[in-house]
C-alpha cells in the first residue's frame, strides 16, 4: 500500500516538474516578464524554504539564521564577479563551502540550546553577521557590490533582456533541492532527522548520534541555501547586507515554510505559491498608492490563514484527505453491511 502511495506521489512529482518545464512555452507567460519574475521567485523561495525545511522542519531546529548562509553564498558570487572580475562559478562554490563551514561552526555550540533559546541565538547571529558585513571593507561594507555590465550567457549566468534562462536556472535549483530532500525523506537520514525532532532522548536510545545528525542537517541546509543566495544575486545584479543578510530575509523563508506546512515535502512549494504571488501582486496593485496598503493587506492575509489553519496549507490538505478517507471507509462499511 505504501508503495502504491509512493508511486502516486512520484507520478505527481514528475508531472509537476514537467508542467514547470513547459510553463515558459505558454505564450501568455512568455510575453509577460513580470509573470516570469513571479515564477522565478516562487521557485527560488520554494527551494530556499525547502533547504530551511531540512533543519527547521524535518529536524525541528527552528533557525532564523539562514539568511547568513544565503548571504554568504550571494557574496561568493558577487565577489567573484565584482572584485575579481571572473565568472561567478568558483565564487559560488567557495561561497557555499564557506557557508557550510560557518554553519557548522556556529551551530555546533548553538545546538546546546533548546527551542526558543536556539531561535533567539540564531537571531543574534544574523544581526552580528549583518553588522559585521556592513563594515567589512573588503566586501565593500554598506556600499554593496554592484555588477558591471557583463557578457550574457551561462558562462556568467547573467541575462539582461530575457528571464527564461533564469527560470530554468531556478528550476534546476528547485529540482535538485527538492530531489535531495525527497531522497533524504525516504531514507535513513530523513527518518533520523524526524526522530531527533520528535524526541532527542529516544533517538539517542536507539543509537542515533543526534548531535551529528543535527550538524549534518545544518551543513546540508546551509550548503543548499547558499546556492539560492548565489542565484538571487545573479538575478538582481547587486548584493548588499540588508538585501541578503537580514532578519527580514530569514523570516521570509520561515514564513513560506510555515505557511505551506513545516516538515512536509510539498509545504515549501505550496507556501511559496501562495506567499510570493500575494506579496508581489499586492505590491504591484496597491504599492503604488503608497501608505502601505499592500503590506496591511499582506499582513492581514497571513494572519487570516494562520488563524484559520494553524498547521499551514498541508494541514488543510491532510484534513481533506482524512475527510475523503473517512468517506471511503463509510462507503466500504455500508457495502459490508449490504453484503
Amino acid at each position, binding site marked *: 500500500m505504501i508503495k502504491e502511495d509512493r508511486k502516486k506521489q512520484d507520478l505527481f512529482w514528475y508531472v509537476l516538474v514537467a508542467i514547470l518545464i513547459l510553463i515558459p512555452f505558454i505564450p501568455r507567460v512568455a510575453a509577460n516578464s513580470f509573470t516570469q519574475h513571479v515564477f522565478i521567485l516562487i521557485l527560488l523561495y520554494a527551494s530556499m524554504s525547502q533547504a530551511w525545511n531540512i533543519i527547521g522542519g524535518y529536524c525541528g531546529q527552528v533557525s532564523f539564521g539562514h539568511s547568513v548562509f544565503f548571504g554568504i553564498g550571494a557574496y561568493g558570487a558577487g565577489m567573484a564577479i565584482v572584485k575579481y572580475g571572473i565568472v561567478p562559478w568558483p565564487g559560488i562554490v567557495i561561497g557555499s563551502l564557506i557557508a557550510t563551514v560557518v554553519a557548522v561552526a556556529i551551530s555546533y555550540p548553538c545546538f546546546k540550546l533548546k527551542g526558543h533559546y536556539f531561535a533567539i541565538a540564531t537571531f543574534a547571529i544574523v544581526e552580528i553577521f549583518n553588522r559585521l558585513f556592513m563594515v567589512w571593507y573588503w566586501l565593500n561594507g*554598506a*556600499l554593496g557590490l554592484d555588477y558591471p555590465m557583463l557578457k550574457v550567457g551561462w558562462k556568467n549566468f547573467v541575462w539582461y533582456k530575457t528571464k527564461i534562462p533564469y527560470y530554468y536556472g531556478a528550476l534546476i535549483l528547485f529540482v535538485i533541492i527538492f530531489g535531495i530532500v525527497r531522497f533524504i525523506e525516504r531514507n535513513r537520514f530523513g527518518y533520523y532527522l524526524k526522530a531527533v525532532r520528535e524526541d532527542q532522548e529516544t533517538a539517542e536510545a536507539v543509537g542515533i548520534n543526534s548531535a551529528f545528525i543535527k550538524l549534518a542537517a545544518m551543513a546540508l541546509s546551509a550548503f543548499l541555501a547558499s546556492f539560492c543566495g548565489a542565484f*538571487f544575486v545573479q538575478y538582481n545584479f547587486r548584493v548588499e547586507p540588508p538585501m541578503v543578510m537580514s532578519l527580514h530575509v530569514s523570516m521570509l523563508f520561515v514564513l513560506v515554510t510555515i505557511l505551506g506546512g513545516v516538515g512536509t515535502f510539498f509545504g515549501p512549494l505550496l507556501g511559496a505559491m501562495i506567499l510570493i504571488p500575494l506579496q508581489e501582486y499586492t505590491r504591484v*496593485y496597491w*504599492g*503604488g498608492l*503608497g501608505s502601505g496598503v499592500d503590506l496591511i493587506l499582506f499582513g492581514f492575509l497571513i494572519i487570516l490563514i494562520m488563524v484559520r489553519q494553524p498547521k499551514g496549507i498541508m494541514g488543510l490538505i491532510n*484534513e481533506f484527505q482524512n*475527510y475523503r478517507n473517512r468517506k471511503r471507509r463509510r462507503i466500504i462499511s455500508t457495502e459490508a453491511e449490504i453484503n
Partner: protein
Amino acid sequence: MKYGCFVILLFQIIKSCINIFFSLKELFYLSYLILPISTVTILNYYLISANFKLKTEGGVRKYYKSFYLSLENILIFLRRKTEVNFCKKISVIVLTVLLAVTVASGAAFAQEKVIKIGTLFPLTGSVALAGTRCKAAVEAAVEVINNAHPEIQVPLAGQEGILDGYKIVLVHADHQGKADIAKAEAERLFNQEKVYSIIGCYNSACTAPASLVAEREGKIFMCGCSSSAALTERGLEYFFRMAPTDQTESLEFCEVMEWMNEAKGANVQTIGIIYENTEFGKHAADEGKAAAAAAGFEVVADVPFSPGATNMNSEVQTLKAKNPDVVFGACLGGDYTLWVRTMKQMDWLPKMCLNYCTGYQDPVITQQLGDDANYFMGGTGYAPEFAELMPAVAAVEKIYEDMVDVPFDSDSIQEAVAVLILAQAIEKAGTLDYDAVRDTLYANEWDSPLSMGGKVAFVPGGQNSKAMSMITQLQGGEYKRVYPVDLATDEVVFPMIPWNER
C-alpha cells in the same frame, strides 16, 4: 476633557478602518466580477495572472456559464457535507488565492495621447517619509505640465500637456527601500506598464540596479536626488541626475571651512563625521573624508551608527571625547532629532556643524526640535526662504503643499525638476524616440526655475553640471543663506551658541 482623547482616538481608529475599506472598494467591485471566473479557472491560476483576455463579451459569458455550473456542484457538495467547518477553512484559503488572482488580473485602462511615466520611490519602510514627498513632488510637476497654469513661471506650465496635447500619466511603484524590489519593479514598469521613463529612486542603492534595467531597455531613467557620486560615474547613456552629489557637497563643506578660517579667523582644523551606516551614509562619509584630506583637514572621529537607533549616547560620547571643531552629519529623520537631542543632553556642541542632504533639511525639523535645531548648517538645494532667488517655485509649491502639508525640501524638489526637464526635452525633440530625447537632453542647457541657479545641463554620465547647493544655517527657525558670499543674506553665527546660553 481627558476622556475626550479616548473618544478621539477611537474615532481615529474607526476612520482609519473605513478609509482602508474604501481604498479597497475598487478591489471589491473587481472581485465580484472576477471571483466567479477565478473559481472555475483556479487550476489555470497562472494563466489568468498573465493578463487574460476577458474583455470580449463572449469570453465573459462563457466563464459565467461555467461558473453557474460549478456553483451548482458546490451547492450539491455543501448539502451532502456535514463538515461545514472544513468548508470554512478551505474557503479562506481559496479566497486568499483568489484575491491574488483577482489582483493579478486587473486590467489597465488604455488612453490615447498619453505618456506614461513611472515613479519608483520608497513609499513604505524606513525612508517612507522621503519617498512619499518625492512622489508628491512628481505629481505636482505633472499637474503643472498637464494643465494650463499661466500664472506659473515654469516652462510648459502655460500650455496643456506636451507635444500637442500628450498628457503625462503617472504609474506609481513602491520599492520599500530594497534593491531587489527596485529592480523587479523597474522591470515591471517598463515591460508591463509600458512606461516611457522612470523617475526615482531616492535610495542610491535602489537607483543603481533600477537604472541598469533602463539602460538595458534603452529607455531613459531620470534620477532626482540619489546622492551617490558613483551613479554617474558608471558611464550609462540613458541616466540623468539633477541633484548635486555627496562629492560636490563635501567639497563645498571644505570650502566653507577654509573660508571661515580665512575670513573669520575661525581656526577650524579637525573634522568628525557622524553618519548612518547605510549605502547613503557610507558614501557621504567617504566623500567627506576624501575632500577633507584634499583640503588638508584632519578627520579625528569617524562615527557610523545603525539607522533606526534606540539611543545615540555612545556615538555622541565618542564625538565629545574626540572633540572635533567641525562635524559633518549624515543622519536622516528620526536619527537626526535623536542626535541633536542627545548632544543637548551631553551638553556638547562642535564649533560648526555641516549636514548633508538629510534630516537637517526636513521642513518640519524646526517644528520638531524648536530652538534646538538652530545654528546647525548644511548644504541646501531649496528652502522656502529662497523665494527671492527662485520666485517661480512658490506657485508649484502650493500644489505640492496641498498634498503633503509641508513645503518643498532639497530632495523632493529635484524630483519635480526631473519631470520638468524630461518633459521639456520631449517637447523640444518633438518626438518620443528615446535616442532623440537623450541627445536633446545632452545637447541643450535647460531652463529650470525650480533648480538653484536656474539652469540644468548634463555632462556625459548624466550628472547635472549646473547642480549647486548653498550653505545655509538655521537661525530662529529659518534657513539663512550664509555661503557663497555673493548670495548670502546673513552672517554666519560662529561658533554655535552653547546649549545653556540659548
